[in-house]
């Protein structure tokens, strides 16, 4: 027999070393992980859920609206580009607090009456209000934004509006939604920096708004701001539901992200409608994939930590959780612009945690989800106990071209009420708003006008059903009335009614007061 040559033997040895090396690595993996051959899957080793980047807390907490009064009876309401103004305002607040801290007496906090606040933001004075739909715990607010504070600041529990007025230029005004309380943080010298900001806004492009009683006469007391006329180039946007096809691998990946390695051993239940429930243990963790395209996750809360939850810490937890469970984009990867819309305290004594409702925008336009919110996360004692996604999905190009570039007159904002008198009358009566009899049309109309709390412009997403997987986002007027009624009207097309809501389902309620508005 011919003896193999040295080169062949050496080659064989090299191959053997490589094979043995891989066997060693494999055995070490089994040994350290305490795994077995069944648990070893190449697919799992290759696939690891990518954690999408979470938005920064500072970019998420932005005012829902910025109301600017020019002191001449004219206002403007800014929802586009509010982030930049808010960041600029924070710098000014920082300077205000730093200068105040250097004063001998320091800054003083004094509770003021609602009338004083309304007077300060009335037509008589130039003013600027940064308005949120929720209270931000004030001590945390100061700490987070690096504002100097002293003991007198403890009087303020939360801030839903931060305002400045020409009436008292040495003060910053705060509205606390819970308990409807008003405060002034007073320095011992005038602080006029906000005047520059207001002048800049006044000289720039803006839509003029007027208090409702300017339009409807002295019999109407509402000071909600309405535009006189409006031009808009918003187009309808076609969209679909995120995860409309639950057999999609992305939905499975989302489900898997909640249960990790135990995903293959959890209970999967399908009902007659096609809803799928993944259940861990006896309901400690439940994830629902609903046929209407929504996803819902619930987790049993573990024991209480004893201390009060921190607002910004909880928000950060919520942001990271969403990033690693479905991401802040749609499941199909479409970029979404999401912001914190409102927050509700949850748990016993409302001290245990927060429920965060996130809103979304197309470009700079708010998208209002009828009776829903795109993302809701509840954080109790640092643990996410509830998470809901009701995201839409659309073609990125369609979304990029949501403006025609040729502004047209919208349906006259004030005429929306007269045009839809009967519809609004019925909706408000159902909700228990006291109105004069319908036959007495003039008095009934005054009642409706009096009940207006706010008028906004944006898109409305109709409530999805199992049947309508494709939807159209329509440009709309969103009018908030008394008794927490919200009605949507087409921005064009004779302002036809296109949906209704309650502040509870729109995620902006609580046993709290209405925003102070213009105070005119």
């Amino acid at each position, binding site marked *: 027999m011919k003896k193999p040559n040295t080169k062949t033997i*050496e080659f064989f*040895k*090299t191959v053997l070393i490589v094979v043995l090396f891989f066997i*060693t690595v494999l*055995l070490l993996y089994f040994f350290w992980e305490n795994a077995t051959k*069944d648990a070893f899957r190449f697919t799992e080793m290759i696939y690891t859920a990518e954690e999408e980047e979470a938005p920064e807390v500072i970019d998420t907490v932005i005012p829902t609206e910025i109301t600017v009064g020019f002191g001449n009876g004219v206002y403007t309401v800014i929802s586009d580009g509010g982030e930049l103004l808010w960041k600029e305002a924070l710098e000014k607040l920082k300077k205000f607090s730093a200068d105040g801290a250097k004063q001998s007496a320091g800054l003083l906090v004094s509770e003021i009456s609602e009338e004083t606040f309304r007077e300060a933001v009335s037509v008589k004075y130039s003013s600027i209000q940064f308005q949120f739909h929720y209270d931000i715990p004030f001590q945390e607010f100061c700490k987070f934004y690096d504002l100097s504070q002293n003991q007198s600041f403890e009087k303020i529990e939360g801030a839903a509006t931060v305002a400045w007025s020409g009436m008292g230029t040495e003060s910053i005004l705060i509205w606390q939604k819970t308990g409807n309380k008003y405060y002034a943080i007073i320095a011992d010298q005038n602080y006029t920096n906000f005047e520059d900001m207001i002048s800049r806004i006044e000289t720039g492009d803006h839509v003029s708004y007027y208090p409702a009683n300017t339009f409807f006469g002295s019999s109407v007391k509402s000071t909600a701001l309405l535009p006189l006329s409006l031009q808009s180039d918003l187009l309808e946007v076609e969209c679909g539901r995120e995860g409309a096809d639950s057999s999609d691998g992305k939905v499975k990946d989302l489900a898997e992200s909640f249960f990790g390695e135990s995903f293959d051993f959890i209970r*999967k*239940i*399908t009902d*007659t409608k096609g809803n799928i429930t993944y259940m861990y243990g006896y309901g400690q963790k439940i994830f629902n994939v609903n046929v209407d395209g929504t996803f819902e996750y619930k987790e049993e809360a573990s024991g209480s930590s004893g201390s009060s939850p921190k607002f910004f810490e909880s928000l950060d937890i919520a942001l990271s959780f969403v990033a690693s469970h479905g991401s802040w984009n749609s499941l199909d990867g479409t970029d979404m612009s999401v912001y914190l819309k409102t927050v509700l305290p949850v748990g016993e004594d409302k001290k245990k945690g927060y429920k965060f409702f996130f809103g979304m925008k197309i470009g700079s336009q708010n998208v209002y989800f009828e009776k829903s919110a795109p993302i809701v996360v509840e954080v109790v004692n640092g643990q996410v106990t509830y998470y809901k996604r009701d995201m839409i999905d659309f073609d990125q190009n369609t979304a990029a071209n949501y403006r025609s570039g040729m502004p047209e007159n919208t349906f006259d904002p004030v005429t929306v009420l007269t045009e839809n008198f009967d519809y609004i009358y019925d909706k408000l009566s159902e909700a228990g708003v006291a109105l004069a009899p319908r036959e007495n049309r003039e008095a009934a109309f005054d009642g409706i006008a009096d009940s207006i709390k706010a008028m906004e412009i944006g898109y409305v997403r109709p409530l999805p059903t199992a049947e309508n997987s494709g939807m159209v986002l329509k440009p709309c007027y969103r009018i908030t009335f008394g008794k927490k009624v919200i009605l949507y009207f087409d921005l064009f097309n004779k302002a036809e009614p296109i949906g209704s809501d309650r502040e509870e389902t729109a995620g902006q309620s609580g046993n709290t007061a209405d925003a102070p508005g213009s105070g005119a």
Partner: protein
Amino acid sequence: MDWTKAKNILIVALLLTDFILGGLFYFQHTGDEGTQESVIEATIEVLENHNIFVDTEIPEKTRRMPVLFVKYDEEDEDLVRSVLSRQVKNDSFTMTEQNLKTLCDSILRECGFTEETLVYDSWRIDGEGAEVVYKNIYNGIPVEESGIRCRVEKGEVVRLDRLWLTPTGYGKTKQRVIQSSEALIQFMSERVKENENNGEDEIPEEIHIQKIDLVYWLDLSVGPSDGVTEDTAVPAWRFTYNDGNVTFIDAYDQQQ
């Protein structure tokens, strides 16, 4: 450098490492049979201290099992009613196992219940009639509590209760199931807890476990009445005790 020598040394070192690791891994996962026997003996002793006696063999081997996906099967109620109503009463019917089985088999065939996994299980006299039980056995493992129960009186099937789960496939991966001795301890803990809730320190009545089986079990606290059409059965230890009482203990190792 002498590469040939270096390679030889490396091969020997790697072979040794692999043997040691492989050996450790093998012993870790096969366990020591002697230890297993002593665990069972200790378990029996603890159980007997709590008035629980095992009158059957305790399975020693453990295994790895996936979950089993199942679908609720709806029956044609009108057809079942019609088949039952067509029967003729037979006062001279003798209730032997063979006669009962033949009668029930033919009724089930007429109703269209001919699934391959439908297996005759047992019968018992109950008052003036008898009860015949069929089980759903999938790949040798019962799917609980799926099956058919026929009530026979005077030579005719007077009632037919059916809960049928059609297996649609196994889960992707397997997981170790706990040993029967571990499940027995859990069974005992549940009984002790029940008695504590009733204000008693000890289990008052002797419990005699007659049968221990590894089955697939579906928790029916959520079921078709809640609109469920498909569900997931998990491995469970089934303990049959004191003449027909049955308890299921989830067999997945929750520590993993």
